[in-house]
């Protein structure tokens, strides 16, 4: 295993614009504009890179961009999704803090590729303390001539604006995010149409996660094919992991896809589990990702390997959990906290999710009060999920059911 914290993105960490330029920053943008590289060619490179969205769903970025109509007369938007709200996730925060220029360069290139004159950063209100920092960074980039009218004397003009949310997990879902920007409740839209054809105020819009966009200047610099050599097929490049829970050393680490196991993440990056704690398992991609037990941690961290185990890399949040001393009961508290989160954050648009998440919470209460067996709870949740799954505008309710069912099943011995 390569224990390097400085693979791709972290190598470009710099919160000082001059230092960033010295590290080769904005050379990708300069190359595109001076060599007159066409938007189509950039989309092609991103496709070749195999880059998949780092927000949670893992959709191919180049493909997403290619769905945007090429007609230049139609207004288009790029939105940087900085609304990471999946419990356990804080990796985009570190990009916003330590690599704002890399993100901005990525946004400018992405906007050029899809033909957007204005882009927005949807910043979660919880990150209000980063607002001034970001505004300053945008101003500095503008002063250096990489943003604004006719960038580097080319025909391309671009502006970046910040839009701050007001506290709602669901707004991280791209269509709920769009509704929120339109001044409405964050209700996910029924799809299709997808944002690439019908997005913000009906205009074609691409919504990309912070980390996804931070990869773009690197892809342009290396070339898509070279980028695709990093990691493994279908999981190219690196991943920022937000490691938290009962490990000794929490933080944001960058790992190469497919080259590191979850066990190694805990031991080599996290310095192992804290004294006095019993390791039970790991939530590998934020609370929407079903957990893996202690015995399942020899698994490579990449999209495919985790999907085979019925879970996902999701938002890159690796939460290591267990219990202190002999307090096994803590485990139910953890699950309760997760379900509490889903029932609080269900936006209320779709009945199966709105009612279902509360019902699941009720089932947990019954287990806690020993009114029903864990096994009965599993059955009840599973039957509930057949009435949630695929019947809602977004996967929130379904995730709640899947995760709680997996928790109860996998840890039945401890919970009963």
């Amino acid at each position: 295993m390569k224990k390097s914290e400085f693979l791709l993105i972290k190598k470009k960490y710099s919160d000082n614009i001059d230092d960033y330029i010295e590290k080769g920053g904005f050379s990708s943008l300069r190359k595109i504009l001076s060599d007159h590289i066409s938007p189509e060619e950039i989309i092609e490179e991103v496709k070749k890179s195999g880059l998949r969205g780092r927000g949670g769903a893992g959709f191919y970025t180049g493909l997403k961009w290619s769905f945007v109509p090429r007609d230049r007369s139609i207004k288009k938007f790029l939105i940087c999704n900085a609304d990471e709200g999946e419990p356990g996730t804080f990796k985009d925060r570190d990009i916003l803090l330590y690599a704002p220029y890399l993100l901005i360069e990525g946004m400018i290139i992405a906007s050029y590729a899809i033909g957007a004159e204005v882009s927005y950063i949807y910043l979660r209100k919880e990150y209000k303390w980063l607002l001034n920092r970001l505004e300053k960074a945008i101003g500095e980039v503008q002063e250096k001539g990489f943003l604004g009218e006719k960038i580097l004397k080319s025909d391309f003009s671009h502006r970046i604006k910040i839009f701050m949310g007001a506290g709602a997990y669901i707004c991280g879902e791209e269509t709920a995010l769009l509704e929120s920007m339109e001044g409405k409740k964050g209700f996910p839209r029924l799809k299709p149409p997808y944002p690439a054809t019908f997005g913000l105020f009906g205009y074609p819009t691409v919504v990309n996660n912070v980390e996804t966009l931070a990869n773009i200047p690197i892809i342009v610099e290396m070339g898509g094919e070279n980028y695709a050599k990093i990691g493994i097929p279908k999981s190219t490049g690196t991943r920022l992991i937000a490691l938290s829970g009962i490990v000794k050393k929490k933080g944001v680490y960058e790992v190469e896809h497919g080259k590191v196991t979850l066990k190694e993440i805990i031991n080599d990056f996290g310095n192992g589990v804290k004294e006095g704690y019993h390791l039970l398992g790991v939530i590998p991609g934020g609370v929407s990702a079903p957990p893996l037990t202690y015995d399942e941690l020899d698994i490579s961290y990449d999209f495919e390997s985790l999907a085979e185990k019925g879970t996902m890399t999701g938002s890159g949040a690796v939460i290591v959990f267990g219990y202190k001393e002999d307090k096994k009961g803590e485990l139910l508290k953890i699950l309760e906290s997760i379900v509490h989160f889903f029932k609080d954050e269900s936006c209320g648009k779709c009945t199966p999710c709105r009612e279902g998440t509360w019902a699941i919470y009720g089932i947990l209460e019954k287990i806690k009060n020993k009114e029903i067996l864990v096994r009965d709870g599993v059955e009840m949740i599973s039957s509930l999920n057949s009435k949630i799954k695929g019947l809602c505008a977004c996967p929130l309710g379904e995730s709640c059911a899947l995760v709680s069912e997996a928790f109860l099943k996998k840890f039945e011995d401890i919970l009963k």
Partner: protein
Amino acid sequence: MKSLSSSDNIRSKILEIIEYYNGNTALSLIPVLNMIQDTEGYIKKERIKEIAEILKINENRIYETLTFYHFLTLDKSEKRILYVCRGISCLLEGADEIIEYLKDNRDRLNFDFRECECIGLCDFAPAGLFDFNPVKNLDVKKIKELNEKV
């Protein structure tokens, strides 16, 4: 020279926001609500009327939007607010004990506290936000210190 009254001040800030978003009033709604919340601590009825008039958005629509979001409130909080995260990573570090302590000592606090979902400070768990600024590695000692400072 007469100084701007707070109402004039809010009005000019609203207009600034609309200008920032190129005159798009729908896009300006949540930023306007955020600004008022952060300036006045809540969104009072008169303000909703005022926003409706300036942004030309129906009052009911504004209510609908603002009641959806956690950090927009119709009730005035007399004190500054500490949001304490009850997310899973904070829970694993004892957030429930912190919340219990705060509940038990509510009367003695010079600030108000509310529970909230993950705030992206899991590497500094248990964590909170005070006036939307990070408070890392919360413990009773830190809460007491904060209480004296406020």
